[in-house]
């Protein structure tokens, strides 16, 4: 049996996209009233929910407080029903710790933490359905939630994954493409300045090809930005109508 052909000679991927195309993105802000900020995002079949509390006083040990900036606390979890096979996922396993740490690094770079010294910002992200690109979906959802909470940021943080198949870089990998085992790159970008908040890659990739993959991921992240920007504007418009301005 021949394996799955990830990219056809005609340049189509398994699900019909071309190499640089994103999956369909839908997002909503302000899904929960009780939290300070919240957002829900769908990137194809990957669905994630983000909730933000803060900035508020440090909970627990006061010793953790930072004198010059806010503490960013991120927690990642994924729902038992998020994959095809139902699986119990305990809190604090390696994968979710790692993801939490990555999210924290991403948002420490984007949130203007120095405006809120000695306080704490909590970002909780849950993946409801996983179909590849969970990190990217989490970052994008969290960005919207942080914006919803009104916490000042340098810029949007837009994330996208990219892979590499047969000399071509593919943007926004789906689960099928990720499972094929090629190199995979996750990029979180501050789009207007072009600064990179986080860059992670597993598997080996030759340095000659890195630039091409990076550029594809960056372009995809900029595309994500356009979409998120639209969502935010629409949300603000709706909110202002409700307020009666």
């Amino acid at each position, binding site marked *: 049996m*021949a394996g799955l052909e990830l990219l*056809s*000679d005609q340049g189509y991927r398994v*699900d*019909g996209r071309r190499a640089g*195309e994103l*999956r*369909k993105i839908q997002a909503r802000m302000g899904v929960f009233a009780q939290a300070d900020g919240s957002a829900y995002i769908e990137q194809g079949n990957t669905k994630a929910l983000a909730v933000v509390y803060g900035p508020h006083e440090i909970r627990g040990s006061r010793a953790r407080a930072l004198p010059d900036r806010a503490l960013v606390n991120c927690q990642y979890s994924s729902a038992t029903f998020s994959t095809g096979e139902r699986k119990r996922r305990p809190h604090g396993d390696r994968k979710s710790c790692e993801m939490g740490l990555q999210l924290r690094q991403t948002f420490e770079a984007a949130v203007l933490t120095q405006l809120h010294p000695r306080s704490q910002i909590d970002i909780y992200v849950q993946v409801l359905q996983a179909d590849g690109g969970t990190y990217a979906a989490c970052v994008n959802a969290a960005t919207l939630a942080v914006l919803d909470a009104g916490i000042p940021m340098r810029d949007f943080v837009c994330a996208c994954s990219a892979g590499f198949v047969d000399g071509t870089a593919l943007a926004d990998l789906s689960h099928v493409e990720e499972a094929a085992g090629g190199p995979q790159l996750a990029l979180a970008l501050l789009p207007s300045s072009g600064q990179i908040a986080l860059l992670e890659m597993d598997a080996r990739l030759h340095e000659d090809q890195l630039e091409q993959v990076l550029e594809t991921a960056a372009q995809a992240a900029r595309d994500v930005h356009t979409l998120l920007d639209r969502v935010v504007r629409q949300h603000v418009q709706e909110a202002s109508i409700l307020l009666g301005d």
Partner: protein
Amino acid sequence: MLKSRTFLKKTRAGGVMKIVREHYLRDDIGCGASGCAACGSAHEGPVLEPQPLDRVSSLCPQPHYLLPDTNVLLHQIDVLEDPAIRNVIVLQTVLQEVRNRSAPVYKRIRDATNNQEKHFYTFTNEHHRETYVEQLQGETSNDRNDRAIRVAAKWYNEHLKKMSAENQLRVIFITNDRKNKEKAIEEGIPAFTCEEYVKSLTANPELIDRLACLSEEGNEIDSGKIIFSEHLPLSKLQQGIKSGAYLQGTFRASRENYLEATVWVHGDTEDNKEIILQGLKNLNRAIHEDIVAVELLPKNQWVAPSSVVLLDEGQNEDDMEKEEERECTLKTAVSEKMLKPTGRVVGIIRRNWRPYCGMLSKSDIKESRRHLFTPADKRIPRIRIETRQASTLEGQRIIVAIDGWPRNSRYPNGHFVKNLGEVGDKETETEVLLLEHDVPHQPFSQAVLSLLPKMPWSITEKDMKNREDLRHLCVCSVDPPGCTDIDDALHCRELENGNLEVGVHIADVSYFIRPGNALDQESARRGTTVYLCEKRIDMVPELLSSNLCSLRSNVDRLAFSCIWEMNHNAEILKTRFTKSVINSKASLTYAEAQMRIDSSTMNDSITTSLRGLNKLAKILKKGRIENGALTLSSPEVRFHMDSETHDPIDLQTKELRETNSMVEEFMLLANISVAKKIHEEFSEHALLRKHPAPPPSNYEILVKAAKSKNLEIKTDTAKALADSLDQADSLTFPYLNTLLRILATRCMMQAVYFCSGMDTDFHHYGLASPIYTHFTSPIRRYADIIVHRLLAVAVGADCTYPELTEKHKLAELCKNLNFRHKMAQYAQRASVAFHTQLFFKSKGIVSEEAYILFVRKNALVVLIPKYGLEGTVFFEEKDKPKPRLTYDDEIPSLKIEDTVFHIFDKVKVKIMLDSSNLQHQKIRMSLVEPQIPGISVPTDTSNMDISEPETKKKKLQK
């Protein structure tokens, strides 16, 4: 731009798992017809011609495109590949199905699609908004795909109508499935079967022969008798394999006996590695190289591998009774111990058919259109084909492809593909053996040649970067006479500190062949240069192989040097690798170099350098042999060619001089040093070469043979084997040692290339080296080019590139290289065999001394040292009373009437060319001495009727 609707495709795979996948449908996929305004903005350029007028079909006079379905593509690829067939639309649905079902056809269709001339267009119908169809409830995926194809065909016809109403472009749906065709016509799609369409092409009648004849229902009824049992469906086979009821393996037909085959079972289980199949019904239509499922027979039906040599020679196809009788002859009583697991084929997992070379045996009935085709490879059964040009094809070498093998047919059905030329013609025969061994031998394409450096070429300042100038060194090369692709040169000089500096300089081919370009891809595909008796199939274009890369004397050449500092005991003190420029002072032959070393009067720098090398080589060799390296032997022959006709006039066995082993010794040393270096630098993706130790059972024949001569061969380690071979000498029989070494060579495993990250066992058994690679012949082996690149990166002379550091890519490359090397070897042997035939054709009948190499149940395999020729002496012939043969497997001996033959016995045989069967001209040998009445032929040749005894040799009477 992305106007997409999200679909949910639910499939159940494996257990009960729901898979949800997105499926984006697009509206920007073009139809591929040039001049189509609606698709003008589509991504791909138009591929199909606007006015496809080249085909004149009586069925459809208007211009049209073809749209074949999956089965047409799979079975009639030979027709589609014909240059007459152009403007074909290949649907994605079809392409995917082909991909899942046959990799070779998939590759061929991709080649056709990439060929601009053919105007093949792949239409991505599964992602097109208007041609995507969803599987209905209760619809099988086959039916769904058929429907998808029809929907696409219909869409095309409507789409093209929109494009221009007046010129009536149409798409014709080609299918061999009757129901599908009916449905298509119902839906208003013009549809024909492949046969109807091809027959309607009045301008190209020759295409009809290339049509695959598929077993239609009608055919099966008339020849009623079912010979074979049914093949089980794949799902049942997989179940059976999982439960252990069946075993999966590669089917390997026996060269010597058409009723016998073995199946190599995949997997690691030690026992049952090899299963024997005997008898036509148990072989059940499997063909050499197929992946099959076998069922083991109960122990009481197990058989031993028969030692009978049987050729399928019956003309009539209905003599099944005779066949059964023959099968019985295989099953003679043998001792319990000899029985091997025996099985029968229950199903075919994957066919591995390819086009086969061979000849037509014309049917006895004059008007018949069905003829049998005999492949050149004896492991392939004869194939029935249908052709009208039988009389022109007779006596020609042709290529035929198999289409299928129905249950009621003794032979598989096939169709004619190509005519190669006259049989016996040297050009044709060379072509045949190249094709048969899958050796790429077309001239280099323009794209490849354009990458060669422009002449006149010289070394520039830029090239000297990262390169050492070694032009002052006294370097010389030693090669066989007439060698034009010199890839190695040597030097040796004394240093001030008293030590010796030895350098091996290898042509820097990787300088000219840059990774990834057409030249590189072509050489990677060829893998190796193939040396035939009078022809060389180059791996790289001649400008490189015989000029720019060849380290000829007195010109500046780029090289990759491996330089050691050694003391006088040949111990390596320092090793260094560098890219360099050298200027060889002399290109010597082995004989010339030997003469210089031996001559007491010559004392120039080249000669002293050679003497130093020779001295060190001897020490190195001694050390190597003490380590357990094997010295094996094979009867190699060389032809002396007539300079005008290029016919072989004489042959002689290759001579070995001290200088041969001197060069060899330093090449081995360089290879080992480089292997160590690249493995140290790239532990995961170094390209190395290993030679696995053979399993002890391989040695059985050698041990038994030696025992019959009262000698003991120990085979536990390489060292023990080497030692016992050295001691195995007989004063009365000096050639015995060589014979033993020849036998030992046959016991060995094949050495292979591998990627260091994919394997743990690096040992090279034959050379007794823990690590080894190929570095010294980049002109003729692609593996060396890769090793050069790796080493260049390791010493910082060049930079790496992506494919070089990817171990899976490297492992894939190794697979191809191993395959090419094996095939090159076989092609070489076949070429020698053909020239031997030519030689004996001109020589007439000769009788020579020979030694028995193997004893078979009804034959002796003998080796004639004078010609290095191996042949079989049969004792059972048609139309002659059978002699009394008693075979003993324990000693290996054969008793014929009252004379007993043992392995290594000296006999005298008569050699002649048997042209009675034009299909396979062969060397026939018959026994002359010892004389057995009624069996051995008289030394006098007057009553021979087989071939022209024009040049009788006087020495027959000696």
